[in-house]
């Protein structure tokens, strides 16, 4: 890459960081949908029932809770 001035570089860095964050967010959503669709959706109907929607939301939340629980407990064990 040819030389670029400070402010352009900073702008580029910011852009790439944001895009990277978005990509990681989407990637997590794909993972969660993959996991939670099977658990929460039976035979696909004409729309999501409120029970199915609630299950999907809980599935994401509890998976994140599980991750935090495990990370925290791992750190507690290590000490």
């Amino acid at each position, binding site marked *: 890459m040819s030389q670029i001035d400070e402010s352009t570089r900073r702008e*580029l860095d910011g*852009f*790439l960081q944001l*895009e990277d964050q*978005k*990509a990681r*967010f*989407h*990637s*997590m*959503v*794909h993972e*969660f*949908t*993959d996991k*939670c*669709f*099977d658990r*929460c*959706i039976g*035979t*696909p*109907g*004409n*729309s*999501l029932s409120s029970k*199915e*929607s609630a299950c*999907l*939301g809980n*599935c*994401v*939340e509890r998976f*994140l809770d599980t991750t*935090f629980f495990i990370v*925290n407990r791992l750190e507690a064990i290590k000490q």
Partner: protein
Amino acid sequence: MDEVRQQLAVANAQQLLQKMTDKCFNKCITKPGSDLSGSDRACLAKCMDRYLESWNVISKAYATRVQKDAESGGH
């Protein structure tokens, strides 16, 4: 910069397509016959719609949670 954005959008769409195809094939085509029957197609269409809907519900739930965790200063 638009190129980067487009490459990521394509990768995102491909990942969605691949996972949705696998899921709906497994849900709807349990015994692969000599062609896709009308009821196979109806099931695939519903499965797609529910998968996309689920993706959106989960995307919102995850965004809300990330926001909440950020406000409470991490976990």
